[in-house]
């Protein structure tokens, strides 16, 4: 039995767009790009902490997704699949740059020329300063994590993915996800514990 007709203004499902793109409909793929580009950029940025590299990685991820569409079977959602490509590219980029010693972190989330959005700190300057220091410490701590741990941490804590989604996005078992996440959290926790001890 046919289901109720979908209202024409409802955004088209990713799955339909992927099917159409597989048939060679470039406009369908363009819709997917426009829909997911912000999140892909943010994910890449959270990994590499450099705007130029994040732009490069997120665009490359879409290009690779397009050429790999014939092999995409739809077992995971398009966004999970795309995130996997972004994460792998970001891990490769981090490894290459760390080996070459050329990693550079600008750690600027805001659009150039615009003030950076700060998390709410109830207008208390001391809390704001404290929060900024903590963020800076964490950013440095994250940059020192092995890329694979960094990926899992970003997907869990910043992207809010479930363990299962991370497992699909990173292509490893649940146990590995949990293990990497624990080591990443513990490393950052140790960094902050020292900071908190200094404050006392």
């Amino acid at each position: 039995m046919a289901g109720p007709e979908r209202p024409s203004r409802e955004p088209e499902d990713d799955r339909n767009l992927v099917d159409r793109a597989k048939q060679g409909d470039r406009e369908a793929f363009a819709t997917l790009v426009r829909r997911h580009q912000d999140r892909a950029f943010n994910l890449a940025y959270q990994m590499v902490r450099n705007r130029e590299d994040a732009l490069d990685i997120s665009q490359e991820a879409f290009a690779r997704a397009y050429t790999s569409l014939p092999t995409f079977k739809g077992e995971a959602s398009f966004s999970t699949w795309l995130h996997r490509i972004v994460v792998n590219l970001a891990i490769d980029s981090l490894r290459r740059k760390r080996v070459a010693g050329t990693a550079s972190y600008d750690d600027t989330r805001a659009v150039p020329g615009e003030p950076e959005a700060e998390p709410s700190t109830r207008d208390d300057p001391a809390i704001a300063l404290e929060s900024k220091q903590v963020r800076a410490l964490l950013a440095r701590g994250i940059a020192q994590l092995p890329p694979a741990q960094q990926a899992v941490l970003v997907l869990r804590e910043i992207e809010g993915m479930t363990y299962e989604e991370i497992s699909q996005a990173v292509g490893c078992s649940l146990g590995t996800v949990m293990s990497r996440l624990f080591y990443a959290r513990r490393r950052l926790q140790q960094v902050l514990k020292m900071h908190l001890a200094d404050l006392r």
Partner: protein
Amino acid sequence: MIHWFHMALGRGRRLAAYAAAELPPAEHARVEADVRSCPACRREVEAYHLVSSTLRTEPPARMSPEQAAAFLAGVERRLRPGTAALARPARPALRELFWDHPRLSLASAAAAVILVLGLTLVQMEVWGPWSPSVPNGVEVVSIEAGEDAPVMVFQAPGSSLKVIWVFEKPTS
């Protein structure tokens, strides 16, 4: 569910899982009671909470409006050489060709072995010092060791014909 994993954890992992609210309710209550009576555990949990709460309130990185508007064009620029792959999947078709014609596969494999052997002998200076040409007079115009598909381009001197070898990595 994931709880079986946390149940088998040591103290450190259990505290981390507790701070992230990832323990089953009964275990969560048990750890909470422990934490209440253990100042060192409280400090551990406090620092874990700070990690999570800071990361979870990270403002997202945004592209500038210009970057966002030009994003698709940037993707398309990268696609141009491989665009045909979607309409006519070149790689699977090539694989099918070799699969359907085992003799072709054998001939290609033999040619590859001869090529590699030849290049190795040249490099080992058995056939003279290294130069970018192979003994049959065909020149190696370029070798690009890209991550996905190393490419070698050959050309006979005086000929405009180029032979391009793409060493394709098996795709899953």
